């Protein structure tokens, strides 16, 4: 085998990662070229959701177990960054229930990101260790119970989370480019995990749990590993969310965001990384197109305007249609195909 073909092999192995990276960069480049701040905000928002969806994919896609509760870690990440990066004066007055050293600290955003996402990962590890003992649907519902529990606690833990009231004053450093940077890191982590020994073991257990066990895979441990990594990324998305809006409210981290992100994953195809990415892009685009339609667009001199409130109905119908025609998602569990060479078809087999 020549070194050239070895490079091609490597390229092909990493092609999903490269291809998806190029896709995201392309989207951001287009948004930058249009110069529309609205579009750039939409892309930034979409990228934050994309990071959540990638996080969901790492656990759900690889393990086959649904998690309804992963938004918990987004909330923990978002409040974490508030705890670690806001001014000590504010915390002394408004969040006096925090430990003394947390009140006193004020780290810069990057460190805050690492600490907050780390905190989310630790909580994911602990809750995951409890929940992953269960099987299938019981585990899914238990993750939802975790979300509901944390949601109630954060809503009422006034001295630490400011209760139901919003925390204001997070540094608004997040824009489209920051989001792109983190999205690419998330993509990389998800891909490396998926081709790692751990990812492969978990995927094996997804296909046939008994056989995987027989081959010595500790399914419980593998699920916890994936759940923790997933919690880390979703926590990071929470950090970005906080610094993007500049305002935090517990109410933002509950059922609507849970469902829209799960819908992105499932519609794209939960069994592949490409599915997760494509799902997030497609749904974000559909929402934005209908929103523009609701505001009214001029086509050939005629003003076309959809009635207010129709956007959501159309979105629901589009989601249903996609599911009916592609029950396994847009990507059908495959990665994006290798576009070059005669053996293109070979890359079109389902991901390992």
């Amino acid at each position, binding site marked *: 085998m020549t070194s050239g073909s070895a490079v091609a092999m490597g390229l092909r192995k990493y092609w999903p990662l490269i291809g998806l990276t190029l896709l995201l960069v392309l989207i951001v480049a287009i948004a930058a070229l249009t110069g529309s701040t609205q579009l750039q905000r939409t892309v930034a928002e979409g990228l934050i959701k994309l990071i959540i969806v990638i996080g969901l994919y790492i656990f759900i896609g690889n393990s086959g177990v649904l998690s309804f509760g992963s938004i918990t870690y987004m909330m923990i990440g978002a409040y974490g960054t508030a705890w670690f990066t806001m001014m000590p004066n504010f915390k002394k007055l408004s969040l006096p229930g925090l430990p003394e050293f947390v009140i006193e600290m004020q780290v810069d955003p990057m460190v805050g990101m690492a600490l907050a996402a780390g905190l989310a990962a630790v909580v994911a590890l602990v809750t995951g260790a409890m929940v992953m003992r269960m099987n299938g649907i019981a585990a899914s519902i238990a993750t939802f119970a975790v979300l509901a529990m944390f949601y109630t606690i954060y809503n009422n833990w006034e001295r630490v989370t400011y209760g139901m009231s919003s925390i204001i004053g997070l540094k608004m450093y997040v824009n489209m480019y920051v989001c792109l940077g983190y999205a690419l890191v998330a993509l990389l982590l998800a891909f490396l995990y998926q081709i790692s020994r751990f990812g492969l073991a978990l995927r094996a257990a997804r296909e046939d749990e008994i056989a995987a066990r027989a081959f010595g895979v500790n399914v419980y441990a593998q699920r916890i590993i994936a759940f923790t990594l997933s919690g880390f990324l979703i926590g990071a998305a929470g950090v970005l969310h906080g610094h993007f809006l500049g305002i935090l409210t517990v109410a933002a981290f509950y059922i609507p965001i849970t*469902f829209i992100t799960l819908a992105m994953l499932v519609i794209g195809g939960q069994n592949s990384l490409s599915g997760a990415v494509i799902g997030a892009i497609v749904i974000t685009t559909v929402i934005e197109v209908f929103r523009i339609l609701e505001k009214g667009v001029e086509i050939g001199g005629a003003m076309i305007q959809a009635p207010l409130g129709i956007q959501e109905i159309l979105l629901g119908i589009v989601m249903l249609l996609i599911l009916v025609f592609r029950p396994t998602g847009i990507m059908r569990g495959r990665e994006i195909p290798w576009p070059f060479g005669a053996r293109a078809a070979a890359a079109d087999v389902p991901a390992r």
Partner: protein
Amino acid sequence: MTIVLQIAIDAISLGSLYALTALGIGLIFGILRLINFAHGDFITIGAFALIVPSAAVVASPFIGAWPFWALIPAIILIVIVLALAAERIAFRPLRGANPATLLIASFAVSYVLQHVILLIYTGRPKSVDIGGGLTEHIALGELRVPVIQIVTIAVSVALLVGLAVFMRRTTFGVQMRAAAEDFHMARLLGVRANTVIALAFGISGLLAGVVSLIYISQTGMLSFRMSLQLVMVAFIATVIGGMGSLVGAAVGGFVVGIASVALQAVLPEDAALMRDAFIFGFVILVLMIRPQGLIITRAARQRV
């Protein structure tokens, strides 16, 4: 003593409402492995059918103004038709899809239904008063019990018994139980899938219609997200009870209803703020101790 009795009645009455909702969800889950998130919207639409479709601030009663002998069947019929339509349009094409796909489909159905209500009726809550006499209360010795609580309990018990008889004594019932335990095997043994599934949705719609009526008699208010909490609790109940087991769903409903009333009664005010955290903590605990739920069906036990 009186207060304990009173709390017991509160608990059983709330438990009945949860049990009926849980049963509607459990029935569909048992057969299709579909967590029907849209079940709550069936309940909501049954309730909205009581008033004239309009964005007006003050709602005018529509079916809600009919005499009860017409009102009750009309609402139940509407919800049954809706449930059957949802099955035909959204869920039948997805038969055999994995649970995640089914769940998201039911979420999409729910999302569409909610926003249709929002578009027609606006997000402003509406009021309607049905079952005027039900807001009265009667004296039972020292107790003063609202009639609605007694009606809720009576109707639930009647429906549960009726359903149990149907399931055990009729051919369709036996087929449905077989399908709930092992759909694949049941089909091999000649159970017709379309009939059984349509029947399950019909019964689930009937239960949702009844819940609509009871719920609205109790609350008097309509809003497009009115059933969210109810359905969330019912899911939890179904899981605690044991997914796939109808008895389990009913038991789970009662357990959650009774637990939440008991916690509300016992917890001091500060801790009562955290009531739901205790309830969900309890759910996790139950699932850790008995991951298959309280009532374990044979099919569930056989799975790995």
